[in-house]
């Protein structure tokens, strides 16, 4: 089915998320929609899917104008979507999720589960998925959950299938498999819209590429274009994709973690006997697919997990079972992975956020009074130093862009006297300019002799920053390898395959 979007405009208040966007997707092609985070790709697709109502423009399927008042209409017209955050009910089975919204029923509305099971099995078989229709979705790995999403769309005979950032949660191998599925779907006549900001994937799978920047189409590109050309179109200026980094000069071991184990309240082992050492002046990157224990590991280091066993020592002193306060006072700086949830108080000003973790002692607080003039001077300095673009230090943090929010977090953490710096997903959701800034900040911290841990699910980021790479899978350390380890090896390790080292140890 041919899909055409004409002059789509969507505003949120004063912000124009989509500005007269035109897009044509021919039947049986994979059309990549490339753009930075916040460029308006997801908004556009939500308009197409009937979740948002556009102020202007029209949607055509096979040259017929469509009027969608909700996702139900879009689905009935043959549009399916694989959402970035899966739209699956965790406590339902696969069959229940697939049938939801177009249930086949018997007498008295009785659900016809056998029919739904048959449907799941039939579509699974067609694409070589191995999905158990009676498995609870919450028990499935994310890669399989995504296949459930695909089955869900196909069970409604989708002719146009939208993949919204589908690779964010996948291992490199799963990504390759997904691309195979996309090609298979294309060859069977389905039109595919592939939304992403990853240049490598676009070039691997797309038939045509449309680049979006700041809510407007900036042009078309062919899959043969180079990374640099695509990045320049996406960002609007020439981009240096590599990070300048001198070789590390590792010093003495600083952070020593031995046999660290973290349990959740049900007794599930989230971090399993993890041991590693970080030396002064090096960056240890912790790589792995989302949800393999990295989050819990950092939380255990910060004293945020209640059921921890094993040893954590920093410069010889134990940190385990200390309060967060004492761990901060020991000189640990922390950039949490979700800045809006854990890193900042949105309804506080920039200045207030800058003193959040030092509100108990001079110079910020003396005799129970916040030293406002000192805070103002401090905040002005930091805003300049870290290039936080805002209307002043009294701006509410919630009003800032993601990049500027992250700079506030960095400014707060790096302005303390650090003996260990932990940055979890430091560039998630940021634009290219902010990513460069954050990476430079992390490397400068390392060069000042501080041990640094970077947790990232993005292999590009791991490759750019790491002196050594620790790969986690299902709570365990698969291996610790040098920073220049090839992507293919890292990819296999992220799927749990152990590297065997020949020659010198890492």
């Amino acid at each position: 089915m041919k899909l055409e979007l004409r002059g789509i405009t969507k505003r949120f208040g004063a912000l124009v998320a989509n500005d007269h966007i035109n897009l044509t997707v021919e039947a049986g092609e994979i059309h990549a929609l490339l753009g930075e985070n916040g460029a308006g790709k997801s908004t556009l697709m939500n308009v197409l899917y009937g979740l948002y109502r556009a102020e202007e423009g029209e949607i055509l399927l096979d040259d017929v104008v469509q009027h969608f008042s909700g996702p139900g209409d879009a689905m009935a017209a043959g549009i399916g979507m694989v959402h970035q955050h899966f739209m699956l009910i965790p406590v339902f089975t696969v069959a229940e999720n697939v049938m939801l919204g177009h249930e086949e029923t018997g007498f008295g509305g009785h659900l016809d589960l056998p029919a739904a099971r048959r449907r799941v099995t039939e579509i699974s078989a067609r694409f070589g998925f191995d999905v158990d229709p009676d498995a609870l979705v919450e028990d499935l790995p994310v890669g399989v959950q995504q296949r459930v999403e695909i089955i869900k769309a196909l069970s409604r005979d989708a002719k146009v299938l939208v993949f919204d950032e589908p690779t964010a949660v996948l291992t490199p191998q799963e990504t390759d498999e997904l691309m195979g599925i996309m090609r298979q779907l294309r060859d069977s006549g389905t039109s595919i819209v592939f939304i992403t900001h990853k240049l490598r994937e676009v070039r691997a799978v797309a038939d045509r590429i449309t680049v979006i920047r700041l809510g407007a189409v900036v042009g078309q590109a062919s899959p043969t274009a180079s990374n640099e050309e695509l990045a320049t179109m996406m960002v609007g200026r020439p981009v240096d994709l590599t990070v300048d980094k001198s070789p590390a000069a590792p010093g003495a071991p600083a952070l020593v973690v031995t046999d660290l184990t973290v349990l959740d309240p049900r007794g599930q082992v989230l971090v399993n006997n993890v041991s590693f050492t970080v030396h002064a002046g090096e960056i240890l990157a912790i790589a792995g697919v989302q949800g393999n224990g990295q989050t819990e590991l950092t939380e255990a280091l910060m004293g945020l997990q209640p059921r921890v066993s094993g040893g954590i020592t920093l410069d010889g002193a134990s940190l385990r079972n200390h309060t967060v306060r004492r761990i901060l006072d020991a000189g640990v700086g922390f950039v949490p992975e979700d800045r809006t949830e854990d890193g900042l108080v949105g309804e506080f000003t920039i200045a207030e956020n800058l003193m959040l973790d030092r509100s108990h002692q001079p110079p910020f607080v003396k005799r129970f009074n916040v030293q406002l003039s000192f805070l103002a001077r401090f905040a002005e300095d930091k805003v300049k130093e870290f290039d936080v673009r805002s209307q002043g230090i009294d701006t509410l943090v919630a009003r800032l862009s993601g990049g500027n929010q992250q700079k506030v977090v960095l400014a707060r953490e790096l302005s303390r006297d650090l003996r260990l710096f932990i940055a979890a997903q430091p560039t998630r959701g940021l634009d290219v300019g902010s990513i460069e800034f954050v990476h430079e900040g992390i490397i400068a911290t390392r060069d000042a002799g501080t041990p640094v841990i970077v947790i990232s699910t993005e292999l590009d980021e791991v490759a750019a920053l790491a002196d050594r790479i620790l790969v986690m899978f299902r709570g365990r350390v698969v291996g610790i390898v040098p920073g220049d380890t090839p992507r293919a090896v890292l990819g296999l390790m992220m799927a749990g395959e152990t590297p065997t080292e020949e020659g010198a140890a890492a």
Partner: protein
Amino acid sequence: MSTPITVSPAGSTGPGAAVTAAGPDFEQIKSWKTPIALAIFSVLGFLLLVVFGRDGESTMRLSTTTDLIQLPDVVLPTRPTGIAVVALLLLITAASGWLVRSKAKVPIWLVTVFAVFLLVGFLAWASADHTIPVPGLLFGSLSLAVPLIFGALGGVISERVGVVNVAIEGQLLAGAFTSAMVASITQQPLLGLVAAMLAGVLVSFVLAAFAIKYFVDQVIVGVVLNVLVSGVTGFLFSQLLAPNAGTLNSPPRFENINIPLLSEIPIIGPVFFRQTLIVYIMYVAVACVYFGLFHTKWGLRLRAVGEHPQAADTVGINVARTRFWNVSLAGAIAGLGGAYFTLGSVGAFGKEMTAGAGFIALAAVIFGRWDPIRATLAALLFGFASNLQNVLSIIGSPVPSEFMLMLPYLVTIFAVAGLVGQSRGPAASGKPYIKS
């Protein structure tokens, strides 16, 4: 730094091949909560049944005079019974301690057996030289549980669809008031039932409108509605019903209907099958809500909206509409429970006559883990606790009646706080679904 690296497949026996592709690992967390709680209750049991034990004989009557099959009374010597019970309690406590030590879970049935023994011991102790009419105790328990069960069903539906229903109390009270008035005027108890349902729906409309359309905090709306209904019915009662009690507040009550055969089963028959129409409606309602929630399209969509409204939206389910109508349905069911106060048991409306039953129903929802059958069982437990207090004060137990009045609420607190542990409610319950 260019170490040559090759990759071996998972699970190979090479050095460092520790990671296999198995599922998540589990390690049993030792929790001493249950053994400690059982130990405390065992000690309390020991103090009451042995140290302050009473002498005499405790009689439990198992049949009513009208039964076809007459069962003989059970006579227990009070003090030896107490000692035997305490011995069993200590045994179970020791067993649970041993289980936790060896990293196993204490099964829920063991805790239930413990509670039953403790109950038997307490009953024997309290009825020394008296007779406990067991059918009467159970019959009264069911009667007191009826409004709780209707309220809990309303609560389960409402919470499952994603709206916290604190207004059950208000819905019960509104149902009780309108059913009394309408049934008095028309002299038709059935019309009273319909009116009670409508009154419950009306309360739900307000809750639904504020919670779903205007995103007001659902708990606050619920609490305010309870106060509002209490105020309005109280005002109308003193201004309208009390002066004209003969015409406006003397509804005809439903008669007890004996179901042939079933009502003659020993013990169970008189309890379950010599009830009024409302109670039989309740049996049907429990079965229908259970079947509906877990086996029909209605239930699937309802639960989807309560778990992950956005996912439901993306498959074309109208979240606001689903929530609105199901919250209304919940109100209708809770309203039926209100009618039971006036048309089933008391026979007239009284100010604040629900006396917190709606909140106990809410507790039953949580204790029953948002499952209609379990919530019904929880409501029966609370009904039993209330009626135990009634029966014991009638036969003259040595426990002060003020203390016994606390019993149902104590049971509620222990049940909800202690036994539930980490039960998980519908993920989106209480959260408004705001579309941008």
